[in-house]
């Protein structure tokens, strides 16, 4: 999982300064919120309060937390169906996200979208898309809009290692490179496209090289290390923001849970999973850094944990207390008033 630059960048990357203590703590809180939120979502699913598809991000927290730490004020974000973490990292309220998971009127989509379909124009989070790969052309459309409006924003377009085999991804690479759209493609490579290991579905070694034919630079990053993610994000976002065109970051990561709640994950060994949890966990790694650098003491960490647990518990309470959408909601929001 060593970092490796595929193509030289024409723009010198900004020096990845060691983040100041307050930012290290922000990253830690961001990852921990995602972890605790997803654990709670798993519990509520087990209790029958969440149904349908539910894809948890546990293990992959460093990717979106590190990317979002470097996001600019006008940046936009779009991803696939494993999307709860992206919403939290973009600043959406955990209550509204959890209430959408329970299908209640207090959810971001008033209960009509579900786990895979939440949006917030306020936070420039554009979903939450259930068709593998479809968010990629939509995402370059966000980049097109940034360029059209010249607003200085970059579109963060997330896709999994499974999506990289979809044809529309390459249609998007082509147009994004041709028109130098401000886009960073973030490939969350958790090694399994649902149950099919990378070696069984993806030709070639590195997914970060998939843009080479279009002249899109790519880097493979240790996506279990939030500081590596953060510095890669700084490089890629600066490149795209400067008008040099799109950039690909392949984040090597790992999901501890199955593809979705109904996946027993028998395609990989227990040893493989426990090795990742014990030796590569992104939250443990950052906690170690915080302690080694004396940023925070044990009591401080406990306080953070307590605060986050409380906010997740409040979200779960809200998600259960919020009423189901009114029957009349069946017929609303199909069309906008012309």
């Amino acid at each position, binding site marked *: 999982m060593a970092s490796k630059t595929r193509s030289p960048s024409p723009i010198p990357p900004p020096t990845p300064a060691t983040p100041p203590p307050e930012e290290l703590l922000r990253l830690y809180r961001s990852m921990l919120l995602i972890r605790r939120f997803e654990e709670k979502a798993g519990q509520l699913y087990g209790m029958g309060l969440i149904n349908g598809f539910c894809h948890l991000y546990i293990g992959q927290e460093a990717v979106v937390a590190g990317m979002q730490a470097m996001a600019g004020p006008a940046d936009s974000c779009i991803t696939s169906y494993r999307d709860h973490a992206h919403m939290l990292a973009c600043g959406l309220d955990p209550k509204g996200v959890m209430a959408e998971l329970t299908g209640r009127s207090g959810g971001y989509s008033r209960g009509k979208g579900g786990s895979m379909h939440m*949006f917030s124009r306020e936070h420039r989070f554009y979903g939450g898309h259930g068709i593998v790969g479809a968010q990629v*052309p939509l*995402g370059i459309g*966000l980049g097109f809009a940034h360029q059209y409006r010249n607003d200085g924003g970059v579109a963060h377009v997330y896709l999994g290692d499974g999506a990289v085999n979809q044809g529309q991804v390459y249609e998007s690479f082509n147009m994004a490179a*041709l028109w130098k759209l401000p886009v960073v493609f973030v490939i969350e490579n958790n090694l399994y496209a649902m149950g099919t290991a990378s070696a069984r579905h993806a030709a070639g070694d590195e997914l970060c090289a998939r843009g080479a034919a279009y002249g899109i630079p790519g880097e493979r990053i240790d996506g279990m290390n939030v500081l590596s993610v953060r510095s890669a994000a700084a490089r890629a976002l600066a490149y795209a923001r400067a008008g040099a065109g799109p950039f690909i970051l392949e984040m090597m990561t790992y999901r501890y849970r199955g593809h979705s709640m109904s996946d027993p994950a028998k395609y990989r060994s227990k040893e493989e999973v426990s090795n990742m949890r014990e030796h590569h966990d992104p939250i443990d790694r950052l906690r170690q850094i915080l302690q080694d650098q004396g940023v925070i003491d044990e009591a401080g960490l406990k306080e953070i944990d307590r605060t986050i647990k409380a906010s997740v518990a409040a979200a779960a309470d809200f998600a259960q207390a919020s009423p189901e959408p009114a029957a009349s909601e069946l017929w609303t929001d199909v069309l906008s008033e012309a």
Partner: protein
Amino acid sequence: MPIEILMPALSPTMREGRLARWLKAEGDAVKSGDALAEIETDKATMELESIEDGILGRILVPAETDGVAVNTPLALLLVDGETLPDANAAPPSPQPAPPPAAAPAAPVAVSAALPAAPLATHRQTVREALRDAMAEEMRRDPDVFLLGEEVGQYQGAYKISQGLLDEFGPKRVVDTPITEMGFTGLACGAAFTGLKPIVEFMTFNFSLQAIDHILNSAAKTRYMSGGQLSCPIVFRGPNGAAARVGAQHSQDFSSWYAHCPGLKVVAPWSAADAKGLLKTAIRDPNPVVVLENELLYGQTFDVPDDPDFVIPFGQAEIVQSGRDITLVAWSRMVQVALDAAQTLKAEGIEAEVINLRSLRPLDIDTLVASVQKTNRILTVEEGWPVAGLAAEIAAQIVERAFDWLDAPPSRVCGADVPLPYAANLEHLALPQPDTVAAAARTLCNRTSEGGA
């Protein structure tokens, strides 16, 4: 015998063209492949090449002649030392002489039977009306932009976007790669942010490559987001059969898109429809599918002068009033229905012809009111019958106007086969005025032409 150089057909739908200028003069020696003249069609300017070595003996159609029908002799080519026949001799060919330069050969194809209204109008082709609709809306709203294959430098594969690149520049008239799924997804993403893309499909047949984004990204997002995120976008282009372009380029998608909540679907027939409906589509905050028809692009109609002329969705137009049977049609089939109505009128059957214009929402009230008057309804649909829009109309009429019906609600549809290439089979596969008239006669209990 000198060789006659004939007006060529330069596209599947070309019936006539303009002889813009001669590139050779009488008496010039020409080689096979030399450009002799420039021919302008409604789509493009192309060069007419010599098919033999020889001498350009006589020019029969002067430069700057409009409306020259395909196969009209344009010039005589002298080969193998031939000499020109006596200038005063009889024409060298039994074919009729070409039309004089001053008189356009082809009159206006169709006369739009717009309801008598005090609107000032001008004559315009459907093609020009579509372009004007886009240009006016792009001037009005800087968030509107056009993208698609060949919309910019090429001026549109069917010349719909002629002049738009010059006026609005490449930022707002975007030539895309041939990548329907990609550019449709891109446009939907841009629309999520509030931009208002017009996506041109070179034909709607290619929208199949992009249908995931039309349905899953454009049509469903507003609902899935609880009303937070809209997708103000227009998908437009020619739909249905053109002329002899085979099955993969000839499908009618009316019922496909009309099936889907979250979309609005319109299908203009006249130039006024084209302008009024496209302007409404561009201003609409929802995804709108505008199903045009290539065969209508060159046809001329009256179009209101008012730059704010728009046609609201969900309002059908009674093109011709009648008391005996209701003929419902949209897009090119309106003309087929009008032609059938003309035949029927001579037999004493007065058909009411309704131009649906809007497929979703469907103006069922106008159809019900018509059936309450005529007691019979026949829908003419270019597309396939199974699960088609005509079937939907029949179902709704049965639900809403059963007691007024004197005959089963019926339909004339495209044949339930992929569209064939052969001219005779293609003709047989599509609704024609005579098949529509025959079906109408049956519904009116008339067994044959003129019979009672």
